[in-house]
């Protein structure tokens, strides 16, 4: 009977996952439905922008600088073999604007801000603050979830743009200042190759999608967490794991749609 038990356990997990996806979709829809209130009282969103966006600034800037510097160093080593060091700017800029900016910023955002959101809402639930709100006829989705959702969606593209800009500066520091690639060709080849609509806008669209997905996962995991210490810690872990995987998979899908045939 062990076989039957195993199969039924697997089936149970699959059904459970699909069930949770359904609940998460309904949760996302409700968040959009109740967003009107927090967009009218915008100071709620601003408060959350501070804790998600401003507090993530340092990690984004430092990470972006180092990623750009590594790109500059590695790119130089490879391009040198073909005698095309002047294309270093193109490589650094395209790599950051198309892929690394949105993806790395979203991964950092998920672990920096997403986990905090889940833990906060999970603890609110565990200490019955959410039930108390419902008692006072305050809709917890409108009051707690929606401002955080919009803060995440707004701050993600800004963080990704900052990551790319700082990263390009890092690549410039290593490539031009330290190694001595020609400054003129670094910038002019970059400008000739990077297209505003094709590359920069698609990167921004990517980061908006990632911001939406990461915040929805984080908020849903918090809202759905069992109201125990163990439950909250499990939910926080799941937020980071699920949103990281979701970012990487979605990145492949979006890249396949956006840059095919380019």
């Amino acid at each position, binding site marked *: 009977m062990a076989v039957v038990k195993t199969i039924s356990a697997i089936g149970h997990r699959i059904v459970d996952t699909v069930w949770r996806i359904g609940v998460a979709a309904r949760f996302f829809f409700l968040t959009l439905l109740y967003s009107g209130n927090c967009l009218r009282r915008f100071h709620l969103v601003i408060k959350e922008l501070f804790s998600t966006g401003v507090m993530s600034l340092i990690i984004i800037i430092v990470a972006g600088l180092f990623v750009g510097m590594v790109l500059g160093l590695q790119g130089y080593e490879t391009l040198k073999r073909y005698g095309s060091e002047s294309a270093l700017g193109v490589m650094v800029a395209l790599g950051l604007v198309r892929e690394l900016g949105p993806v790395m910023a979203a991964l950092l955002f998920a672990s920096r801000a997403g986990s905090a959101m889940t833990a906060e809402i999970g603890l609110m639930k565990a200490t019955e603050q959410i039930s108390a709100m419902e008692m006072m006829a305050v809709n917890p989705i409108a009051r707690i979830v929606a401002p955080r959702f919009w803060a995440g969606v707004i701050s993600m593209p800004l963080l990704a743009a900052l990551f790319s800009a700082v990263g390009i500066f890092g690549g410039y520091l290593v490539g031009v200042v330290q190694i001595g690639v020609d400054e003129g060709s670094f910038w002019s080849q970059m400008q000739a190759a990077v297209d505003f609509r094709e590359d*920069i806008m698609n990167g921004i669209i990517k980061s908006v999608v990632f911001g939406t997905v990461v915040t929805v996962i984080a908020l849903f995991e918090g809202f759905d967490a069992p109201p125990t210490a163990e439950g909250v810690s499990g939910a926080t872990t799941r937020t980071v794991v699920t949103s990281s995987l979701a970012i990487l998979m979605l990145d492949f899908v979006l890249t396949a749609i956006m840059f095919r045939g380019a």
Partner: protein
Amino acid sequence: MERTTLDLWVGMFVVAGIGALVMLAMKVGNLGTYNVSETYQVHAYFSNIGGLKPKASIRSAGVLVGRVTSISLDTERYEANVVMSVDKRYQFPKDTFANILTSGLLGEQYIGLVPGGETEMIKDGDLLKQTQSAMVLEDLISKFMYSKASEPAKEESK
């Protein structure tokens, strides 16, 4: 409305983010350099375009004067129809010569315009009749091999 330090921080964050975006657009992207000024369209037929792609640059005397808009195969002539949009500031004579050239040995391909001697200027929608196709490396190699193969025979006959 009362102001808090929190608003200041959020404001700084938003300004920094938008500033980064503008910097990306202007300094990194092509929005700052290539302004979409008024253009006119001309087209030309090439028997082989090699690796030419839409948005490739059009240069005259090395100066960027426009971009390739679209490339399609004309099934009546079985030649590539290349539509180009050229900046209105630059007018070319009617007998302008269009070549497909390569920047550097392995660089990207672009169209070079060499103006002719006519006094009448080209108009929107006109056809550039004189064209030269792209150099395809295989063709060059086969020509070279062909001439090499025929060389020793010549010397023997002498």
